[in-house]
């Protein structure tokens, strides 16, 4: 019994920690730029694929598997360059448009990135060898937990901590919060809004790509992963509340653990359960658990 509970808990938290990163990127961008980024799942997928490339190279030049986390993080950060490209090249043209167009532009991105991934990496499932199990397995209360899962969980918590610190204790964070509250006011106070948008979008992108890169040793990269993830990330932010970091955190935990529990209790319910919760939340608490806007 204890074993089962420990298993369910850790599986749920592991799932949640990856979801959190993607959802946090989604939230940040939505909070500041008011754009709901349907392509956040694509960034995640890009992170995963580039992570594989980096790890493969790292291992081929003799890098020890236990340090593979470094090339993974590097892959996530390298992909930061697509942030400014997309923001300056596409998004900035639609800030003054109806929100629907912004949504659709990110939908266009999703379509494009899906094929770009296919163009570069094909459709065959790809994975990194020799990383996932290199860290060993931890046995507690009769349950076995791969140490790599714990690393991802810790990394995600650290990133959450850094985000929280940035948002509440730094000048950049204060500017972000001011802009998300009222961007006209922020502009009037002499904040360079373009600059903020680039930075925020890039940060949001990197959260997604790192999420993808970190998760990839535990699984395999497949072309569907973007579309599948966006539905989950969407559930997370709706449950947590759009634009709220705390919401992303709690929402991710909820979705992750619920998925885990539903598998243990009644597997047929899995996705259905998540959609139902999303709808229930939207009906009774449309702003989500931690959201402010309606």
């Amino acid at each position, binding site marked *: 019994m204890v074993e089962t509970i420990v298993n369910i808990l850790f599986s749920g938290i592991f799932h949640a920690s990856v979801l959190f990163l993607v959802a946090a990127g989604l939230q940040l961008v939505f909070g500041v730029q008011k754009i709901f980024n349907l392509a956040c799942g694509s960034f995640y997928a890009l992170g995963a694929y580039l992570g594989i490339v980096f790890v493969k190279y790292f291992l081929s030049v003799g890098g020890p598997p236990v340090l593979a986390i470094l090339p993974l993080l590097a892959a996530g950060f390298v992909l930061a360059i697509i942030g400014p490209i997309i923001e300056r090249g596409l998004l900035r043209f639609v800030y003054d448009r109806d929100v629907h167009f912004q949504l659709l532009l990110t939908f266009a991105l999703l379509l494009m990135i899906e094929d770009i991934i296919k163009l570069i990496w094909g459709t065959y499932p790809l994975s990194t060898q020799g990383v996932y199990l290199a860290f060993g397995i931890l046995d507690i209360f009769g349950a076995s937990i791969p140490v790599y899962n714990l690393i991802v969980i810790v990394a995600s918590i650290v990133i959450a901590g850094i985000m929280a610190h940035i948002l509440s204790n730094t000048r950049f964070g204060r500017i972000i919060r001011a802009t998300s509250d009222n961007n006209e006011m922020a502009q009037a106070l002499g904040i360079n809004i373009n600059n903020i948008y680039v930075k925020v979008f890039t940060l949001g992108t990197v959260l997604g790509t790192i999420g993808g890169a970190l998760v990839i040793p535990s699984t395999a990269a497949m072309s569907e992963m973007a579309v*599948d993830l966006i539905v989950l990330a969407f559930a997370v932010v709706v449950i947590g509340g759009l634009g709220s970091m705390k919401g992303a955190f709690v929402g991710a935990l909820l979705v992750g653990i619920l998925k885990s529990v539903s598998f243990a209790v009644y597997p047929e319910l899995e996705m259905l359960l998540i959609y139902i919760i999303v709808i229930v939340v939207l009906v009774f608490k449309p702003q989500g658990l931690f959201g402010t806007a309606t």
Partner: protein
Amino acid sequence: MEKNRREFLKTAGVGVLGAGAAALLGSQKAFAAPAKGVPKGPVKIGIMGFQAGVAAVPGIAGIRAAQIWADQINKAGGILGRKVKLKIEEESKAKDTVEKFKKLTIKEKCDVVSGILSTGNGQAVGKEAEKIKQLWLSWDGTTQKGLIETQPKAFYGFRSVDNELEAVAGAITTAKVFPNIKKVAGIGNDYSYGRNCWAAYKRVLSMYNPGVRFEEGIFTKLGETDFSAAIDALAAKKPDLIMSSFWSGDTSIILKQAAGKRLFQKVKGCFTTGGGVHDTLKKEFTPEGLILGYNSLYFRWTDNWPLLNEFTKIYHQKHNAYPVYECCHAYFTLQAYKAAVEKCYGLTGQWPTKEQVVEALRGINVPSLSGYRGYRQDNKQECCFFMGLTTHKNSYDFVTIDPVYILPSAMIQKPEGYTFDQWATAWEKKVKG
């Protein structure tokens, strides 16, 4: 392994086949004028497979196999001197797939359409083929609804082997290799294939092992990349064996994540179709001693089959990967078409009509990548399946199987006119009787 192979080779009649294969791969031949009674211009063959999504893995492999086949045939002079021209279209949801099938038929005027992987699309295209009288040679798409054939009287449609075949093969192998298991849990994709396989597996295994108990099956959505929770749920049931009908990248993912939870240290496993993407099953996380099934093609089932050796070499050179099972399906359908046309020509001296090709295809038996394959009188494919226990004793970084059990579909596919249930009941009587 040796014994099995010999057994199989005997049934397949390897002598004839060696010659046939040699002829096929024979010396280069320029395109002479088409034979007498053969129309000018190329033979147009429509090819349809998934190019996006999870099913793109086998889909693209099948398309590649078709291209390799066409190159080989054209080098050898085409079909009766006619060059083969492939028209490739994407398979996707049923609506678009039927549209493309129509396009290949009406607009491109293809002589035959080879392809289709999904059963839903198979039902739609199967019906369509009869309506617009187009020859359709399916790779992997059956026309079954669940375990029931929806188009028993198909004429133009030549269907793949039944969906649940791998599961039946898996059950037989399980009964043979692990006769004493008591409790089985199952996991599959949340769609008809996953559910049908689980149902068929349960039915067949319980014939041979009446005391076995089955847990409620777990089904995850196609394309799932995180099985941690599913693995926990499976482990919590404390089964002796876990059966899985995963056929794509999910096999490698669940095995990797299961390794992280030491699942298969305690439990036996039967992956009925997992060999589909066998080179992703790395030794690092795939234990030895799992039952692993290869749907219709195992890339080293024999060292003495020039067709496969040549194909694997070309495929690997061209795409830096090993062929996937779909390659053999695709390859066979095209081989069968060519043989049927030639057979008709031998009889009439004319390029055959579609109807004549249909007659010729029924009962045909031709060499393909994994041995001889054929069509039954009810337009259903017959081929062999490969099951075995995973081993690390090879030169690759992924597992192979040893021994290799070769199960011909005559043994694991319901015969013409039988429903699965009737067949299973009859079979059960035989087992118990």
